[in-house]
Every structure is written in C-alpha cells, then in structure tokens.
C-alpha cells in the first residue's frame, strides 16, 4: 500500500470519516443467500464473499469422548479471493480464521455434540463445515462466521436407527424415506472484528481490505445475544488500553444482536420455503385417494416444520406433542389460531399440487408423506395417528415401509384420544 494512501486513510479517520463513507462504528450490509441443498450458504458482507457447506458422516468417536459427535471446520482461502492467496496448505491467516470460528462454535458449546451420538463409543456423526472464501473485501472472519452459522442452521442430517442383530447395526435412511433432522444449536456466536488504525489508536468496526492493509492491530470478539462472550482474539499488533476494549465489547454486543436477528430471519424464510417445496412435491392422486387424511397429512407436515423450528433449540416436551395431536385431528375449519395458519398454507399447497400435477411426479412420495409423521419426536403419543393413516394411505399403493422401534411401541394415551372421533383407532 502506498504511503500517501495510508496517510489519507489515517487522516480521514481523525475526522471520523472512512474511505467507503461509513462511520467508525457502522457495520456493512450483510446479505445471506442459500444454495440448492440443505446446509449450503452464501454470505456477502460488503465486497467480501464467503460460501459455507456443511456435510455429515458417521465415524468412530474420539476415545476420551465416546458419546459426543465431532465438528470440524475447514477453511479454504481460494486464490479466487485475492491475488496473494496461494493454493496448497492453508497459510497463517487461514488457520487463524479457522481457529476463531472453531472456538466460537465448539468451545462455547453452540452446537450440541451429544445429540450427534448414535452408538456410544462406536458411531457418532461427524459434522464437517467447509468455508470457501471467494472474494476478499476485508473482515473475512465475520463473514466466514456468519456463513458457518447459517449453513449449520439450515443443514439437515440423515435420520438413522439401530437395527440388525442385537441393535448394533446403524441403518441410515435416505431423505426420501425419512425426513432428515436439523442440528441442535443452542445459541449463535457472532464474531465482530475491530481494527486499530494509526498512532492515536482509532478504532473502526468491520474493516475493509484497505483498512486492513494499514491497520496496526485487530480485535475479534465473538458474542451471543445472551450476553456471553464466547471468544476474544487479539493476536499481537498495537497495544490497546482496557477501556477501549470494554467499549469495543459493548458495541460488539449491540451489533451481534443485530446480526443474529438477520440470521434468524433469513433461516426462517428458508425453512418456510423449504416446507412449501416439500408440499409441492406431493402429487394430486394423494388428495384423491384419501381426501380427509391427505389434507390432514399435509397440514401435519407443515405444522411439523413449524414446530421443528421451535423445538430446535430446546428440549422436546410432551406439551408440544399434544399440540401436534390437537391440530392433526381438528377439522380444517376450526377456530384454533394455529389451524388458521395451516388453512392458508393448505389452500396454497392444494392449489400448488393441482398446478404441479401435470408435471411428472414420483409415485413413491407417499412413504415420505407418511414417515414425516413418525420421525419428529420419539415419543409414543405420536404413534396414535400413524396406524390410522397408514391404513387409509396404503390402500392400493406399494410403500417402502420402514419398521422402526416406534412401530413396536403401543400407544399409551388412549384416554386423550376419546376427544378426537375422526381418528380411526384400531
């Protein structure tokens, strides 16, 4: 960087002006987009462009943590992003970025690794996050962190059950057979980076690549909306007094709340769009074969997506299941506030399915419709609905029936069933 460019940036900062027109504590605009598959995200922070992909694999756990899954982050500083990035082994900055994101997610226990255990000591899920830096416009850490978070929130891992002799074999179900499950994320650690420029130690948030070239030091604070500081990274550079660091943390918490809102909104819109896409796959014949059950099935699947969003980061409890039961059996014209939402969606879904009926559809969609039931929460109350619907839907269609442990469990709460005469319990 030329000396006069450096002087220009520093002088402008003395009057609180940054070269891209922002104020010293203005964050750039975050744009979040999703890829075609679950668990792929594309984040744009000003001119910085990062993509994240999440994949999962069954592996053996570490010896000292036999009932926890693993989470690993791979950062690729693609030569696409900057002239100076080289291929081959990750350089110092790539490793540092990977470590900051890793600490924010793993050490703060944002992603629940115990739920990734399948057979303790033998099989656990290993989640792999690949972050590709496509364009270096400055502040890669924050952008990469957001990309990792968004990808984790939209990722769905395959459902698996234990089977075979003495329940030691793990059967992984394909997404057509059983709905894949989201990861349990307790909180969202958001990284905010500050740069210290010039001899006066002017602080700016979210440095652009020009500012990064002239800065004397950098501080990255990873916070969540609960007020926890998940990680702080200040690797060398200019010395900074404590009050400045406290000020940075205070500003960071405000920005973190802002970014968390944006992330949540984007993920929610993706999830609703995904649910609609699933509904559109269902062909018209499903509605004709079993009218009442078909509509209820669809409403349940939409409701399940909604409830899945809610139960994502808290434990499953009975009340949720009861709610699901209630909505499944009430007639579509009821006054229940939830059902109203469903009606709108149902109408849309039925209209969409009629419109889509002309295109070629797969006939073995039915198992996915049916099995959307069985999977969400592994509690026996769910089972009451399945036998009845199985009878109505299975008429005349060959289905790939996957017997699970839950099929063997008898429904326990018969008393509550009395209020729902629509269900055909046998």
């Amino acid at each position, binding site marked *: *960087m030329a000396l006069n460019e450096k002087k220009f940036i520093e002088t402008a900062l003395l009057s609180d002006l940054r070269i891209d027109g922002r104020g010293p504590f203005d964050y750039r605009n975050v744009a979040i987009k999703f890829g075609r*598959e679950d668990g*792929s995200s594309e984040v744009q922070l000003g001119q910085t462009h990062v993509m994240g*992909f999440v994949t999962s694999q069954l592996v053996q756990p570490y010896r000292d943590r036999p009932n926890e899954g693993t989470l690993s982050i791979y950062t690729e500083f693609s030569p*696409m992003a900057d*002239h100076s990035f080289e291929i081959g082994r990750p350089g110092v900055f790539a490793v540092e970025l990977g470590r900051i994101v890793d600490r924010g997610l793993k050490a703060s226990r944002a992603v629940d690794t115990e739920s990734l255990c399948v057979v303790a000591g033998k099989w656990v899920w290993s989640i792999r996050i690949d972050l590709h830096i496509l364009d270096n*416009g400055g502040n890669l850490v924050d952008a990469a962190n957001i990309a990792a978070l968004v990808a984790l929130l939209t990722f769905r891992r395959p459902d698996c059950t234990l089977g075979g002799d003495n329940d030691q074999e793990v059967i992984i179900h394909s997404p057509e057979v059983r709905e894949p499950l989201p990861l349990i994320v307790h909180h969202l650690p958001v990284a905010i980076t500050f740069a210290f420029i010039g001899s006066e130690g002017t602080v700016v948030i979210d440095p652009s690549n020009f500012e990064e070239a002239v800065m004397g030091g950098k501080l990255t604070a990873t916070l969540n909306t609960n007020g926890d500081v998940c990680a702080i990274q200040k690797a060398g550079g200019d010395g900074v007094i404590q009050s400045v660091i406290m000020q940075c943390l205070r500003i960071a918490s405000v920005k973190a709340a802002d970014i968390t809102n944006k992330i949540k909104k984007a993920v929610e819109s993706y999830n609703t769009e995904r649910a609609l896409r699933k509904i559109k796959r269902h062909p018209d014949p499903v509605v004709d074969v079993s009218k009442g059950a078909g509509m209820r099935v669809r409403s349940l699947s939409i409701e399940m997506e909604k409830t899945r969003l809610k139960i994502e980061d808290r434990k499953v409890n009975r009340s949720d299941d009861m709610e699901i039961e209630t909505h499944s059996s009430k007639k579509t014209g009821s006054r229940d506030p939830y059902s109203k939402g469903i009606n709108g969606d149902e109408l849309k879904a039925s209209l969409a399915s009629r419109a889509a009926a002309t*295109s070629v559809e797969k006939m073995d969609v039915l198992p996915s419709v049916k099995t959307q039931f069985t999977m969400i929460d592994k509690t026996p109350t769910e089972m009451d609905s399945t036998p009845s619907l199985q009878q109505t839907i299975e008429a005349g269609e060959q289905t790939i029936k996957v017997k699970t442990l839950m099929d063997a469990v008898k429904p326990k709460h018969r008393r509550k069933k009395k209020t729902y005469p629509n269900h055909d319990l046998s």
Partner: protein
Amino acid sequence: MDLEREGGRGANQLRPLDCSRNVLNRAHGSGSCSHGETRVLAAVYGPKAGTKKNENPEKACLEVIWKPKIGQIGKADKEFEMILKRTLQNICLLTAHPNTTTSIIIQVVHDDGSLLPCAIHAACTALVDAGIPLKYLAVAICCCLVENGRIILDPNKMEEQRMKALVHLVFPSPVQSVLPEGSKEDGIITSLSHGVMTVDDYFQCVKHGRAAVAPLSNILTKKLQSQSPSNQSVAG
C-alpha cells in the same frame, strides 16, 4: 419409445443456461454459469509476469485451479484442471501476451450433472470479463447414451449415474471467429468419454452435440453482450 426425463424435458432439450459476468470484486475477471441446478463460479487473474518452468516462454501460459465443493482436491479434480487447461489453451490467443501466466480458478458451487460443460462456460465468461484475448468462445455439451440406444443431451446427476456411456464435447463457437473461414478450427476441441459405446454411437453423439452448438452459442453470446461493461478499476 418415448423417454421420460425429469421435468418433462425432451431428449434434445437443454436445461436453462444462465451466465453472469463480474460477480466478484477482487478478481480481474469473474463469471458464474449455471445449467439448471449445476452452478460453477470462475475467476481470472492475469496476465502476470513470468511463466511456470517447463512452459514455453514465447507463449502465454495458463494455469487452472479447480476447487471442489467439499474436501481437498482429488484425482478427478486434477483431471478436470488438465482438461480445462488444454481446452482454454486452444481458445486463447497465446501469442498476444508472451511470457505471462494467467490463472483461472474454478469453484464448484453445486453439481447436478453436466459439470464440465458448465465449468467451461464459466471459464469463458470469466476470460471475457477479464479482457483476455480469445480466438472464439468455447461451447460445451454433454451427450449421454441411454440403454435403448437413444441419445440425450445435458443430463442431470440422476441421469448421469444411470447412463450407459456419456461423452463431453467442446466445440468452438461459430459466431465471430477471428480466423478465416473454412479453417480447421471448426472441429471438436475436446472430447472426453466415459463408459463403453460403439464407434457409430460416438459419431451419433457428436452429431447431436454439434446440432446443439448453434443455439447454445447464441445464448452465451447474448448473455455476455447484454451485461454492461465494468468500469471498475482492480488496482490494489
């Protein structure tokens, strides 16, 4: 026998093709191409001074870096790099900038079949965006041989896996060629085949592929022309 393809496509129907230029800020040239769901991003840096060793210093040198979506670069990716390098060496005017290296970086965003053609189109778009002198554009197509002997174009991932054999073909775009008419440069630039097929089947594939070149190159040229030229400096 009528072939049922997903989405109701005919045997000779291609997926919607979309190209855009100048999608990245730091790269000297960038392009993104999508064939239906398959999406590839390409960036070009260059020409930089000096050639790699063992390369001819009297010509420009091309360097292709293929980045897969997940994981480290593997053998298949290295093969794609080599194919892309040789293909692009054919279409670039190498004598325009001797003793320089141009880097082309390909990033796979989503692979839903027909990945190599998509990558070639993205690379061409990025080269055009960077202003690297080209003789003509390259147009790539993937032709598959189905069990019953029929040939389909532009398969998606599911179809690719079920195919008996498939062949990737790259042709020069016939529009606005720098070279004189009737030269040898209207043949097949690249041909990469997988699976077993008879010689007749191969030539049938070539025929079908060549028939798709004209509409493809029209779409490509139109997309590249319709976008406004970038007036942004890439210094620093």
